[in-house]
């Protein structure tokens, strides 16, 4: 019997796997048992109705995809009235993802979505597919801190801050978020990328550029989780390129307390459930009684002398 439960601060999950924002909706019940998930997480909500970016909105690349959805949505009112009840039909705790281009509005939105049933907020300050400079606060430590500070004052719910891998020094942004009162960090959003169609000579995406996700980004984001976990003491939610149980293990070893899965569900719609089951089996085989023990368990006391290391066994 493996104990799969994990905690992100006070936020409790029966297992460490939840969907990544924008890749999940209650519509997934068409194909899967949503109650198997560790948590549910909404698509990022904006205050206003947003159309999103011009199609094509996706381009396939080696080991991943680039999207330029651009955060479409029907706005916060519609969300509160129609979508929250839809999510609350399922048992996993609900996290709501919100965004804004104005710090104060971010806080106001946080207050408005602090309603019964919502168990945590994810603060999306890192979407690379919105308009340039459109709320991509996660590129700057001061903007990040300001948002988190205001949101912190506006709600008692746990706040998960979603960071951007496009930031040059993500560790300093992570520290700023922690100091401003974040309860956890989601690491990370997509990486700004591009594809050009060599037949038509046109960008493959209607927005020209978009955010890359999938296995291609995993080594980069994993490195960020590792660096950040050395620098902050709040929990980390790993997100980027997870497609199998071993990826969850890798992220947890690097310091993550839980993970989000996006891309994999596009390829295998029940991927999250498979990953949860495989994770249990993996722990079982390994004699690991509590999956939570994996968090930060990387053994990184490496030999630093090159001559000694180059005389060691493989």
């Amino acid at each position, binding site marked *: 019997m493996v104990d799969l439960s994990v905690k992100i601060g006070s936020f409790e999950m029966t297992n460490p796997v939840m969907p990544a924002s924008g890749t999940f909706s209650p*519509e997934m019940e068409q194909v*899967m048992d949503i109650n*198997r998930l560790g948590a549910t997480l909404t698509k990022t909500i904006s205050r206003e109705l947003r159309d999103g970016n011009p199609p094509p909105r996706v381009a396939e690349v*080696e080991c991943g995809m680039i999207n330029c959805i651009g955060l479409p949505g029907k706005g916060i009112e519609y969300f509160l009235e129609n979508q929250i009840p839809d999510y609350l039909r399922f048992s996993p705790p609900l996290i709501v993802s919100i965004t804004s281009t104005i710090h104060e509005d971010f806080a106001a939105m946080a207050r408005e979505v602090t309603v019964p049933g919502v168990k945590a907020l994810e603060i999306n300050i890192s979407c690379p597919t919105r308009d340039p400079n459109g709320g991509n606060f996660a590129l700057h430590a001061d903007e990040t801190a300001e948002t988190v500070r205001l949101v912190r004052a506006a709600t008692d719910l746990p706040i998960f801050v979603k960071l951007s891998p496009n930031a040059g020094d993500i560790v300093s942004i992570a520290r700023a978020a922690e100091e401003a009162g974040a309860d956890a960090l989601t690491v990370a959003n997509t990486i700004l990328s591009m594809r050009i169609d060599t037949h038509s000579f046109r960008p493959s995406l209607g927005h020209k550029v978009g955010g890359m996700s999938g*296995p291609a980004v995993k080594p980069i984001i994993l490195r960020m989780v590792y660096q950040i976990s050395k620098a902050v003491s709040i929990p980390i939610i790993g997100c980027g390129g997870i497609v199998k149980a071993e990826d969850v293990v890798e992220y947890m070893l690097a310091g993550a307390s839980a993970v989000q899965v996006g891309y994999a569900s596009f*390829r295998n*719609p*029940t991927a999250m459930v498979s990953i949860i089951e495989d994770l249990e089996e993996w722990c079982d085989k390994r004699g690991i009684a509590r999956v939570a023990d994996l968090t930060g368990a990387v053994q990184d006391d490496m030999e630093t002398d090159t001559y000694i290391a180059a005389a060691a066994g493989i």
Partner: protein
Amino acid sequence: MESTVFAARPHVVGTENTVDQAPAAPVEEILTTVLANDSINDEYKHLIVTASPKALTAKPGQFFHWLCPSPDEGDLWLRRPQSIYVVDKERQRLEFLYKCVGRGTNGAATLKPGDTFNMVGPLGVGFSMEPGWKNVVVLGRGVGLATLAPISQLIAENGIGATVILSARSPDLAMSGDLFEKAGAEVITVTDTDGTSAVENVEAIIEQRVADNRADAFFTCGSNRLFMLMKRLGKKHNVPGQVAMEQIMACGLGPCYVCVRTFEIDGVKTLKRVCIEGPVFDMQEAMGW
């Protein structure tokens, strides 16, 4: 050994030890077995695969999301939507008609009988027949002929008469006629080769059916030009219509908002997702493509 890319045991129906985790869910990921995958002309292939009971609930106009094998040395990671051509409940088979246009479809073209082929479905909203309709007009071209084909099953089941206009560059590309003929429909093939596919000619044929009171509803797919024609005639004569649309997809299930198309409802433009709000839409609301 560690598996490196995918969940070791995805809940794919057809794999060993599969437990159906969500029996109430209408959609599933299935491993089908290829029975045939033959070229029917220079551009199209006809795929026949085995089907699970859930897959056999597929309705005309719905689609499956294919995980195509690679035609080159690179992996394909996103699925490709393909509408159902024939649902053969008796022999528990699905049939598809597809055009080889890019990596995914060229990868599918490499499938051989006996191969397993992973698909997710059935997906989306299909065509529907309203009680009271006695005669409908179906107009398609190109790949749209594959999508419209299962309407033949609908009219047969509902005892509805149909005029089916198949438009194509040349006669050999005018597919699906046999299915409609078997269903008792009148099939008219118009081609570029002999000039009969010109809009004016098609318009005349449809106008005639309207005049003859044999156009209770319109169905179209595959050509923006012909869709525009039908939409105009539908509006003019107040004939309800359905159009099957395409858009590049990722999830195929609704969450990702990749597959949006523009619609106009009461003068207001809005976006709808082809995968879950379609692929079949009200003809007067659709804006074309």
